[in-house]
C-alpha cells in the first residue's frame, strides 16, 4: 500500500510537469490570444492521470499544473481573477476522474464504444468546468477594467470559448486514441 502512495505522488508530479511542458513547447500549440490561452495539448496528461488514479489524482495533478503556470507566467490583474484562473481552473480538470472506474473497466474488457463514451464524458466535464472557471475569471477581470456598460460576459465567452472548445475536442480525441493504442501502459497501476 505504501509503495503505491509514493508512486502516486511521483506520477502525479511528473504528469503535471508534462502538462506544463506541452503548454510551453511552441510547435505543439496554436496561439489564439497574446494574453494567454492557446489551443494546446496540455490537458491530456491531466486527463490521463484522472482516468488512471481517479478524482484525487486528477485534481492534484491539475492543481500542481495551475500553480506552476502561475509561477512561470503570472497574470494577476484582480485577486479573485488570479484565484479562479490559476487555482480553480486547472484543478477542476481533475473531475474527469469521476469516470475512472467506467473507463478502466471498459478498457479492460476491450469495449471500445463504452471506452469512447466515458472518455468523452470525462474530458468534456473536466474541460467544461475549466472553461466555466476561466469564464467567470474573465467576467471579474473585464468587470474591473472595462468601462461601464460593456457586455463583459460576451467578451469573456468569446475569449475563453475560442481556445477552450477546440482544445477540448482535440484532447478528447487524443486521450481516446492513447487509450485505444496503448491500453496496457495506461492501465499498469492496477
Amino acid at each position, binding site marked *: 500500500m505504501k509503495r503505491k502512495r509514493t508512486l502516486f505522488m*511521483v506520477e502525479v508530479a511528473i504528469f503535471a510537469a508534462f502538462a506544463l511542458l506541452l503548454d510551453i*513547447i511552441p*510547435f505543439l500549440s496554436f496561439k489564439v490570444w497574446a494574453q494567454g490561452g492557446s489551443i494546446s495539448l496540455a490537458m491530456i496528461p491531466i486527463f490521463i492521470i484522472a482516468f488512471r488514479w481517479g478524482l484525487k489524482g486528477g485534481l492534484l495533478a491539475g492543481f500542481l499544473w495551475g500553480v506552476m503556470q502561475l*509561477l512561470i507566467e503570472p497574470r494577476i490583474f484582480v485577486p479573485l481573477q488570479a484565484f479562479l484562473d490559476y487555482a480553480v481552473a486547472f484543478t477542476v480538470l481533475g473531475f474527469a476522474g469521476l469516470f475512472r472506474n467506467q473507463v478502466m473497466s471498459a478498457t479492460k474488457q476491450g469495449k471500445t464504444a463504452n471506452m469512447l463514451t466515458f472518455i468523452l464524458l470525462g474530458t468534456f466535464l473536466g474541460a467544461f468546468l475549466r472553461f466555466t472557471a476561466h469564464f467567470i475569471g474573465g467576467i471579474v477581470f473585464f468587470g474591473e*477594467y472595462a468601462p461601464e456598460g460593456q457586455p463583459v460576459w460576451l467578451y469573456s465567452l468569446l475569449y475563453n470559448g475560442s481556445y477552450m472548445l*477546440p482544445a477540448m475536442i482535440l484532447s478528447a480525441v487524443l486521450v481516446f486514441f492513447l487509450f485505444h493504442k496503448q491500453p496496457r*501502459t495506461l492501465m499498469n497501476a492496477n
Partner: protein
Amino acid sequence: MNNALIIGQYVPGNSLVHKLDPRTKITLIFFFVFIVFLANNVLSYSILTLFALVSMVISRVPIRFIMKGLTPIWFLIVFTFILHIIVTKEGSVWLEIYSFQIYSGGVFQGIAISLRFFLLILVTSLLTLTTTPIEITDAIEDMLHPLKKVKFPVHELALMMSISLRFIPTLMQETDKISKAQASRGVDFRTGSIKDRAKAVVPLLIPLFVSAFKRAEELAMAMEARGYNGGEGRTKLRELKINARDIAVYLLFIAVIAGLLLTRGY
C-alpha cells in the same frame, strides 16, 4: 535548445531583490495585489509607481527581460486605455474631432487603469524574474506550515511541486529528442491543418507517455530504496532565514501602505 531549457523567467543575479527571503517577496506581492486597488488619485498612484520602479531598478534585471515579460500585456494596456477614452464621458471636453469628443475623465481613467495593470504585471514578474520556482516552492511550503495541524498535506504537495519543476527540463530534452527522431522519419509537426498536426502528434505523445510512466516508476522505487516514507522528520538542504534586510523591506512596505492611505482620496 539551451535557452529553452531555462524554465520560466528567472534571471540569475546578486541584487538586494534576489537576496531577499522568498517568503518576504511573496508576502509583499500578495499584499501589493490588494493595495494597488487603494490608489485613486495622482499622488497615491505616484507612490505605487515609485515603489514598483525602485524595486525594478535595484533588482538590476536587464530591462529587456522585463519588457519581454510585458510583451503580451501591451495590447491589453493600450486596448483598455482606448476603450476608456471612447466610452467614458465625464469631465470637460478636451478634444473634438468632428462629432467625436474626448473627455478629460476618459483620459484620466484610461491612464489610471492602464497604469494599475502595468504595475501589477511588473511587480509579479519581478518575483519570478528574481526567484527560482524551487525557492518559491520552499517558501510556500514554509508559509503553509500551520495548515499541517488540520491534516493538510503541505509537505507532500511541496515535494510533488519540486519533483514537477525538476522534471520539466528532463521531459523537455526528451521531447526534443523524440520530436527530432520522428521528424527525421518525415513527421511534420509545424505545418498543415489542425487535423494533420494532431495526427502528427500521436507518434510523439505515445513514446513520451511511456517514458514518463517509466521515469515515475523508477523515481518512486529509488525514493523508497532510500527510505522515503512521508514528511515526518525530514530535514532540508536549503534553510530559509529572515534577516535584517527582510525586516527593513517590510518596514519600507508598511510605509508605502501608510503613504497610500494618507494620500488617497475618499
